[in-house]
C-alpha cells in the first residue's frame, strides 16, 4: 500500500505556504501537518494530492499561550505536547482529556491539533471539543487572516469551511477550568470512537448555570447538543434525572448512519448513555472543585 507520487515543498514561512497553495491549485494541493490522518489515506490511495505542502519548517505555527481568558494553540502543536502541557491541564482540561483519547502515543507524537480539526473526521474528538468550547479557528489565506467560529467550521464529513487556499494557523479556546468530561465508546481501547461526548458544566452554587455538550458519531459532523444544554440550564447539580432527560433530548431527531460497528439504533443508545455519563462526570468534577 504505497502512496501515489506528489510534488513536495517544505516552506519556512506561512506566506510561502499559502502562496504555494494558490500557485499549485490545479494539482489539488494539500497541507501536510503530522500526516497521521492524511498519510494512511494516501497509502490506501483514497487521497491523491498532486502537491503536498509540509508545514514542519514554518515558524510560528506551534506553541501554547494564554491571552487573558483565551488559550491560544498553534495549529502545528503536536497532540503529545498538548497532553503534557500544564497550561492546558489547568485552562482547558476538557482538551487535555480528549487529546489523551486520540489514538495512541505514537500517533499523538506526530499528530497536530490543527491537522485533526482540519481533517474533520466525524468520529474525532477534537472537533467536538472545539464545538463545546465555542472555540475560534484562525485561518490564513491569500487575503490575510480570518476567524471562523467552531460552529461554522465543520461543514460535513471530512469537510470544513477552509477554502482550498487557506491554512489553519491557530485555535483560540475560551478557558473553562471547571467541570469537564470527555467520554467515548470505542470497541478496541484507543481506537476511533463509535460515539463520543464533550461535556462542560459550570455551576452557580448547586445549580447548573451553563452546560456545553458536543457529540461525535451520530451525525455527519460533530454537533452541539443545544436541546440538552437547555434541559440542564438551571437544573440542580445533584439532579440525576436531569442528566438522563438531557441525554434523551439530545438524541431526539438524530438520524445517524449505521455501519458494521453500530446500527443507527445502537448509536443513539450509546449517545444517550455517554451523554448521561459525561454530564454526570463533568458535574461531579465541577462540584469537587468547590
Amino acid at each position, binding site marked *: *500500500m504505497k502512496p*501515489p507520487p506528489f510534488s513536495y515543498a517544505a516552506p519556512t514561512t506561512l506566506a510561502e505556504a499559502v502562496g504555494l497553495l494558490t500557485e499549485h491549485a490545479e494539482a489539488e494541493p494539500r497541507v501536510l501537518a503530522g500526516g497521521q490522518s492524511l498519510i494512511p489515506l494516501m497509502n490506501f490511495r483514497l487521497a491523491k494530492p498532486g502537491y503536498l505542502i509540509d508545514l514542519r519548517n514554518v515558524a510560528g505555527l506551534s506553541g501554547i499561550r494564554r491571552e487573558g481568558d483565551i488559550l491560544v494553540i498553534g495549529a502545528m502543536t503536536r497532540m503529545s505536547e498538548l497532553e503534557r502541557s500544564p497550561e492546558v491541564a489547568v485552562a482547558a482540561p476538557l482538551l487535555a482529556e480528549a487529546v489523551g483519547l486520540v489514538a495512541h502515543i505514537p500517533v499523538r507524537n506526530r499528530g497536530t491539533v490543527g491537522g485533526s480539526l482540519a481533517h474533520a473526521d466525524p468520529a474525532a474528538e477534537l472537533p467536538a471539543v472545539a464545538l463545546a468550547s465555542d472555540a475560534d479557528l484562525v485561518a490564513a489565506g491569500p487575503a490575510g487572516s480570518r476567524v471562523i467560529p467552531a460552529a461554522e467550521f465543520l461543514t460535513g464529513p471530512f469537510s470544513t469551511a477552509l477554502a482550498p487556499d487557506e491554512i489553519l494557523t491557530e485555535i483560540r479556546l475560551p478557558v473553562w477550568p471547571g467541570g469537564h468530561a470527555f467520554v467515548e*465508546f470505542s470497541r478496541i481501547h484507543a*481506537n476511533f470512537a463509535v460515539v463520543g461526548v464533550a461535556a462542560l458544566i459550570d455551576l452557580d452554587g448547586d445549580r447548573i448555570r451553563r452546560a456545553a455538550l458536543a457529540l461525535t458519531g451520530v451525525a455527519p459532523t460533530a454537533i452541539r447538543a443545544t436541546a440538552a444544554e437547555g434541559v440542564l440550564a438551571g437544573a440542580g447539580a445533584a439532579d440525576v434525572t436531569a442528566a438522563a432527560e438531557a441525554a434523551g433530548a439530545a438524541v431526539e431527531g438524530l438520524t445517524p448512519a449505521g455501519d458494521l*460497528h453500530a446500527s443507527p439504533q445502537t448509536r443513539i443508545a*450509546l449517545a*444517550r448513555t455517554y451523554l448521561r455519563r459525561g454530564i454526570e462526570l463533568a458535574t461531579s468534577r465541577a462540584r469537587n472543585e468547590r
Partner: protein
Amino acid sequence: MTTANRADAPPVRDHSAKRRWVGQSIRRVEDPKFLLGRGGYIADRITPGTLHAAVLRSPHPHARILRIETAQALAAPGVHAVITGADAAELCNPMPDFGPDPARHTWRCLAADKVRYVGEGVAVVVADSRYLAEDALELIEVEYEPLPAVVDPERALADGAPLVHEALESNCAYERSFDFGDVERDFAEADLVVRDRLRWHRSGGQPLETVGAIAEYDLGTGSFTIDTNTLSFTSYLFMAANTLKVPANKLDIRPVPAGGSFGSKLFANKPAVIAAMCSRATGRKVAYLEDRVDNISNCDHHGSDRIYEVELAMMRDGTMRSIKIDVIDDYGAYIQFGVGHHGNALAQVVGPYTIGSVRYRVRAALTNKNQQGAYRGFGSEVNNWMLEQMVDKAARELDLDPVAVRRKNFIREFPHFIPTGNVYDSGDYDRVLDKALELADYSHWRAEQKRLREEEGRYIGIGLISAQERSVFSATEFWFWFDDPGAPVTSTPESVSLKVDATGGITAILYSCAFWGNSPETMVAQFVAEEFDCSPYDVSIVYHGSRDGLPATGPGGSRTTVMLAGAVEGAAGKIKEKARRAAAHLLEIDPDDMEWSEGGFQVKGDPERKKSLAEIAIALHLFKHSFPADMESGLDESKVFDHPYTTMPSADRKDLGVFYPFMGHACHVPVVEVDIETGAVTFLHYAAVHDCGTLVNPRSLAGHIVGGTAQGIGTALYEEFVYDDDGQLLSSSFLDYLIPSAMEVPELVIGHVETPSPYTPYGVKGGGEGGRMMAPAAINAAVNAALYPLGVRLTELPMTPERILSALRAAGQAG
C-alpha cells in the same frame, strides 16, 4: 457395526526415564536473531535487482470480466510486465486444490473469465518497485459485467440462487450425513431433547506479517527456486509444480521464518505461484509480498463460517446420550481443503463426554467471498463452542449445575474410542477441572457475581468449559468423506537428519519446516540435547528446502512437536546404533555390552572404558581403517517419521478409524462483566488449565495458551470478516477488522496438567492451538451467564456490542 481394525495401536511406551532437557523452560534458541532485528523474514531477503509484483483486485463480488486494457500500464515507468487472468490461464494450470470437484470449482491464481469475490485478483503488474507497480495498477482498465452476488449461505443453497461456479450447477460443494452409533435409539430413549441454532462468523489468523514469496526462474535448467514464508505438504508440491507447468523435480521451495501464521500460511501457494509466473515471464527475480488489504481480502485463509442446528439428547439425571448436528459451512468462492475442517470436528465431536452416538450432517455452501483456509483449530474450535453451548443449555433446562453435568459425563478410561472411531489416548478431565476451579477461585467469583448484582446492579458471568484439543492429524481425514476417494492417501511424515561432525558437534537438518512463531528449533534442540547430553545451544539447526529434502508436512493440527520428537528420536537412534558399534569396535568389546551414558558409549557399568561422541565421531570421519569394511565413514542419519497411529476408516464410514489420536484437553474459566448499556464485555479474571501431555518447554506452551486465548477473545468479541448483503467486504483493513490490544486481553492464570500420551516420545502431545480452541466457547458461556437474569442468551459470534444490545432490546431489557 464397525469393520475398522482396532488392533493397530502402536506399542505403549515407558516414560519413566529421568529427563534433563525435556520439560525445561529454557530460553528459545530462535530468539537472538529476532531480538537483534535480523529475523530474515521474506521481505528482508530482497536483493538488488529484484522486481516487485502488485495485484489488481476486483471491486465486485461477482462479475464477468469483459475486457482488460493493459497497454497504458505496460508503458508506465519501471513496468516490466502486466499479466491478466486470461494470460495467467495460459501460463499456469489451476491452483493445487484438495476440494471435492476441482474441475468444476476451478481455482486459478488470477480470475480468468469471472471474479467471484471482492478482492480476487484479475491482473498482476511487475515493476522495479512496489511503488511503481501500484502506480501502474491504476492505469489498468477493466470492464466488468456485474452479476448478482450470493452472500448468505442458506440462500446460496436454496433453489434459484446465483451460481458461484456454473460448472458445478449448484452452490453446494459437498453434502453428506454420517451416523455413528445408534442415534435413533438414543434419541427415542432420551428424557429431553435440547435444541438450538448457533451462528459462528468467520475470522482469520491475520498475522502481522502477510504472505510473501521471492521467485526466480532459471532459464538454463527450467527450474523455479522460491523463497517463501509458507510451506507444507512437500510431497504434494508436485501439484504446485503442475500449476507452474514444470516437473516436480524442477521446483524448489525454501522456507523462511514467518511473522506468524496461525494456519493462514499453510500451503498458501498463490503468492508463490504469482511470483514464479512473473519471474518466468520477465526473466528476472520477482518478489510478491501481499499488503494488508491483499491479505484480508485475497488470502484464501478465512476461518470457519457456520450455521448449526443442533439437538442434544439428555436424560433427566444429566447423562448425555446422543447428538444430532446439522451444519452449513460457508466456504466462500473456492474450497481448497474440502471439508477437512469437519474432520477436525469429528476427531473430538463428543468433547470429553461419553456421548454414545452422533449424527453429523455437513453442507458446504459456496458464496461470493474469499475462501476458507486454515485458522488455529481448523474447525474443531467451532465444534467445542457449539457443544459447550448445548451442555450449558441442557444444564439450564434440567436445572442442574453446569459443572456437575460435565463431571457426570466425563470419559474416565483410556484409551477411549469415540463414536466416530477416533481415539482419545489419555487424559484426566477431573484433574484439569479441579485445578481450573481452584485457579479460577470459582466459589469466590460465584459469591461476587451474586453480590455485585444485588448491591450494584452489575452483570457478572462465569463461563466454564471443558473441551478437547486434538493433535497430529492423519491423512485419512482428507478423504474419508468419500466412499470412493480418488486418492486415499495415508502419509503425513516429518523428517530430521542429524549430522555429527568430526568435533562431535551436532547439526540438525529440518526439512521444509516452517518457523511460524512456534519453536521448532527449540523443540529439536531440546530433543537432541536430551538424546546426546549436550547443551541445546550447541546444536546447529538448518532449514532445508523441498526439492532435495526429505518429505515433510509442516505445522498444522498441533503436530510439529510430536512429529519432530519422533523424527529426532528415530535419527538419534540410528546415530547411536552406529556409534555403539563403532565404540565397541574401538574398545574391542561386544556392542551388546555397551551402554549410552553421559555423552558417550561405555562398557556397561564401567565409565573408565568409554568413548565420547566426539571421539567416536572423529574416528568415523577420519580413520576409516580403524573400522570394519561394512562401516561407512561419517556419522549422519535421517529419519522420516510417519504418523505413528492411523487406522483406516470402515467401508461403510460408520467408523472413521483413528485419525487424530493424541488428545489434549483444557478447562477455561473466564469471569466477565457485561455493561448492558453499551454491550461492552470486560474480563475480571481468567483461569486456563491445559493438558497437552508431557511438556517440552512449559513456558513456551504457556505463551501459546495466552496467545491462542487472545485470538479466541478476538473471535468471541471483536473479529469478523464482514461482507454486506451486496457482497462488499466492509472490514478490509485493521481499521475495521479489530485485533485485540493489550487492553482487551486479561492476564491469564495458567495451570498445567500432564497426562502423557502412551504412544509418543516422552508422552508429548501437541498444544499450539489449544487457547483458541477453548476461549470462544468459554467467553460465550460467561456472557450468557451474565445475561441470564435478563432472559438473554447469545448464540452468535462475535458477540459485538451491536449483537448484545440488539439481544437486550429484543428481550425488552435495553433503553
